[in-house]
């Protein structure tokens, strides 16, 4: 008993002395500080200061891959153009070029040149971020990083899953992270890190009103989880659009989220969504409010298929909806051609306007091009993208034409619908090379004879050729001729154009993307029979558009979808059971689907692929 007593007494004494010393600085605080220093040191290494070559100000960014891909804001690169300078904390200035842009989400992907061992930020899971978590922004506020040293501002997460409606015509921040870490002009495009120094978002917006265009404790970051979904499409060098459902929603009196309007030409309608259906979940997220739905929708790129659970008459039903674009392609291209005029800038040393400006246009007024939706929240001061700070005129290099070094000029290829077509070709060729490694059909330009069985019973015989293809199906014969419009040759009936799809598929395999015609790399998207996100090529031939999904792990083509009418379901081929044919991997099972229906599953038992006849 005595021993125990003294043990406890001893413990108390030890603890008390520890506490007495801790009164200076407790070890835990020192440890926490050490952790914070380490996190900041790690995070700042990947931060980038973006400077436009033409003197049009700049912003911030963050490197996310060792080969130099970096994220920033669209509204930072828009005035900077396709070629810019980026400084990093290592004291080096790197040349950088534009890769892809997401103008609605205000994200841009650029590539820093000159190294393949850039310090890259670790991407966190931003859905796990909680209000109250410590976070910090690293960046180039007021273009202070001319000494290459980024500025670090610390704060907490003030809100998560914030929906910030479109400002002007384009930028919509869905599902964003709100922070009280100081976000100022120049922080645009810069990283927001969690306490461990992992990337949770890209800063880009703030609520400013009466206090002028400086931080008022309310900054917004695009969540990194949203950007992860767009990354594949950004790497494609494209101008990427956000998605809409083809339907609007509104809250009912009892607080349910109901379909208030739906386009009959939309995929959602074809999948069975109707007016007044209740939306239970979208993309796996439970939906309780209109803003919750906009958050869930706003994180997807155009063209993705997303699961949606609806409730009608008390019954729940899951459908997979292919999302269409917020804008028509031409509309988005046109918007991109308009360059914004740089705003008049407050000087960094006197950032606040002298007087409040009650007469300036109120951002909460409806703007032309806004997409007002039923159930929109009450009017309020809308946050705005952070202004792009400018150097004072004395320090500004003259506005002369920027000379791009020829070796860099080669990597900048402007093209309609693309931010930089160079990266599209790069990825198209990468995907094709991986597929070709599994099977090069380039020399097999002769007739392909495929004989097989439908799983449900019945023989299938197909002869695929350059000028025409024939097929014999249980439903009857079918024929496709190259010279005629494919949308008039959709036999066998009900298949959505199976023979035409096989015909075009063979043409592409034989001729390759360069010779086939217009083939571009879409980026990455989820496909039912690919475990990761699939690499997707889009090939246009005749009136048909072919979407080809490649499994990034195997390089093999996993699915091909042929669309001949944008308002109708495509013919979808899911290819599997790849087996060797003359040293090439060839799919021996083709599942044919139209909409939600499986038309049939064909198993090829005999595959003959003839070489091209030698031309006389």
């Amino acid at each position, binding site marked *: 008993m005595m021993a125990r007593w003294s043990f406890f007494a001893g413990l108390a004494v030890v603890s008390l002395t520890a506490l007495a010393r801790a009164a200076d600085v*407790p070890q*835990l605080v020192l440890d926490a500080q050490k952790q914070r220093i380490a996190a900041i040191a790690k995070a700042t290494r990947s931060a980038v200061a973006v400077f436009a070559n033409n003197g049009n100000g700049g912003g911030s960014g963050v490197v996310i891959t060792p080969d130099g891909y970096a994220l920033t804001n669209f509204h930072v690169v828009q005035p900077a153009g396709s070629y810019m300078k980026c400084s990093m904390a290592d004291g080096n200035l790197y040349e950088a070029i534009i890769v892809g842009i997401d103008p609605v989400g205000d994200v841009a992907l650029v590539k820093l040149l000159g190294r393949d061992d850039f310090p890259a930020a670790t991407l966190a899971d931003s859905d796990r971020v909680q*209000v109250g978590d*410590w976070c910090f922004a690293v960046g180039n506020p007021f273009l202070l990083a001319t000494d290459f040293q980024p500025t670090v501002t610390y704060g907490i997460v003030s809100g998560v899953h914030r929906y910030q409606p479109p400002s002007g015509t384009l930028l919509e921040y869905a599902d964003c992270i709100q922070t009280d870490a100081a976000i100022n002009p120049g922080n645009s495009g810069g990283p927001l890190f969690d306490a461990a120094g992992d990337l949770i978002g890209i800063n880009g917006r703030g609520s400013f009103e009466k206090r002028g265009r400086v931080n008022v404790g309310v900054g917004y970051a695009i969540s990194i989880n949203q950007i992860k979904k767009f990354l594949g499409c950004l790497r494609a060098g494209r101008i990427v659009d956000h998605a809409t459902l083809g339907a609007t929603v509104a809250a009912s009196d009892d607080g349910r989220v109901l379909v208030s309007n739906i386009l009959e030409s939309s995929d959602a309608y074809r999948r069975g969504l109707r007016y007044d259906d209740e939306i239970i979940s979208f993309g796996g997220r439970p939906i309780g409010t209109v803003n919750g739905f906009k958050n869930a929708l706003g994180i997807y790129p155009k063209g993705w298929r997303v699961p949606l659970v609806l409730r009608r008459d008390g019954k729940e039903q899951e459908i997979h909806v292919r999302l269409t674009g917020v804008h028509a392609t031409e509309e988005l291209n046109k918007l991109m051609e308009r360059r914004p005029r740089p705003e008049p800038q407050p000087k960094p040393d006197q950032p606040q306007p002298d007087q409040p400006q009650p007469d300036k246009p109120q951002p909460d007024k409806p703007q032309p091009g806004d997409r007002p939706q039923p159930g929109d929240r009450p009017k*309020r001061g809308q*946050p705005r993208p952070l202004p792009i700070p400018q150097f004072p005129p004395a320090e500004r290099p003259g506005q002369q034409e920027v000379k791009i070094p020829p070796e860099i000029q080669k990597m900048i290829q402007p093209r309609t619908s693309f931010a930089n077509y160079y990266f599209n070709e790069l990825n198209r060729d990468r995907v094709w090379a991986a597929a070709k490694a599994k099977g090069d059909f380039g020399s097999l330009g002769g007739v392909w004879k495929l004989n097989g069985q439908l799983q449900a019973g019945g023989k299938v015989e197909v002869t695929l050729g350059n000028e025409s293809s024939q097929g014999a199906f249980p439903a009857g014969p079918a024929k496709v001729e190259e010279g005629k419009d494919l949308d008039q040759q959709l036999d066998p009936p009900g298949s959505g154009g199976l023979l035409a799809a096989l015909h075009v598929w063979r043409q592409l395999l034989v001729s390759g993307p360069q010779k086939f015609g217009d083939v571009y790399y879409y980026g990455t998207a989820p496909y039912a029979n690919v475990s990761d996100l699939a690499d997707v090529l889009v090939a246009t031939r005749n009136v048909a558009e072919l979407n080809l999904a490649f499994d990034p792990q195997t390089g093999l083509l996993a699915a091909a979808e042929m669309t001949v009418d944008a308002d109708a379901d495509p013919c979808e081929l899911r290819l599997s059971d790849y087996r060797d044919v003359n040293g090439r991997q060839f799919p021996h099972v083709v599942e044919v689907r139209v909409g939600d229906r499986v038309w049939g599953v064909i198993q090829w038992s005999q595959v003959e692929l003839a070489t091209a006849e030698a031309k006389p």
Partner: protein
Amino acid sequence: MIRLRIVTCLASLLLALLLHLSAHAQGSFAQTIDQVQPKIVKIFGAGGLRGLEAYQSGFLISGEGHILTVWSYVLDSDAVTVYLNDGRKYQAVVVGMDPRTEIAVLKIDGDGLPHFSLEEAVPLDAGSRVLAFSNLFGVAFGNEAASVLKGAVTAKTDLAARRGAFETNYRGPAYVLDAMTNNPGAAGGALTDRRGRLAGLLGKELRSSLTNLWLDYAIPIGEIATPVEEIIAGKFRPMPRDENVKKPKEAHTLALLGIHLVPDFLPKTPPFVEGVKPGSPAAKAGIRPDDLILFVNQRVAPSCKQLADELTFIDRLDPVKLTIQRGQELIEVTLEVE
């Protein structure tokens, strides 16, 4: 044996203290914030015109649905809508307000609602770390959570010291904060210590007319606990009036007092004085055009209609005591018909 227990107790206490320290040294505020958020409400009412936001913040101070907020034009509406943190929507009644501290108490129908207890509010010193909960910029709607900012009390000082510079009715002590807590819509929000204990009420936006500086501050709960009690107890209460009270045969009227109000064209037109009849009781009492009448015999008169109505309860032979706001001054005058 008793000693042993004491020591065991002490040891575990120290352990708890150390664990606690560790949580605060490096941990997130997420848990603390989760406990506070259910007590914060979003208030929507009048406004929506240029520069006048139609929203502010508040927090529950009783399980039955009393809400503390600031007194502002947002409450000048027949329909003051309150959203709880979980998205439940209520129409609130303005129980009363105190013009000196510029606070108001609202009431929604509720039972067992999560709330702060004013008696448990903590005083803060300069240097204390704080969290500020509010719906600044109206960022949150429906079931979306209020925004949280972190900061520290940089000074505890008298707002009166800034008389003439900062236009405010409140002249008492205030916590000056180093976080940008006082944004549009933030007024009425809660200031807590870093353990989520209530400490203050975020004040209205204040801007120095001399330096254009915006002040981020909160009013210590200790300064407003009494007026809140008074409001809940029935003082400053506009409604309801006991139905059995009889009106006098000959009551006061505005005309008789010599007060001409602004045209009454809104559902709740604030009773601003448009003109005063020379030689009238109002003129003798020194009432001037642009004065805003707040109280009639200690009863709130939030609109022209209600002011006229209040007067019908006062006999002409009795004096009328008016509380008036002139600029940022509060003035009490007594009017008598000779």
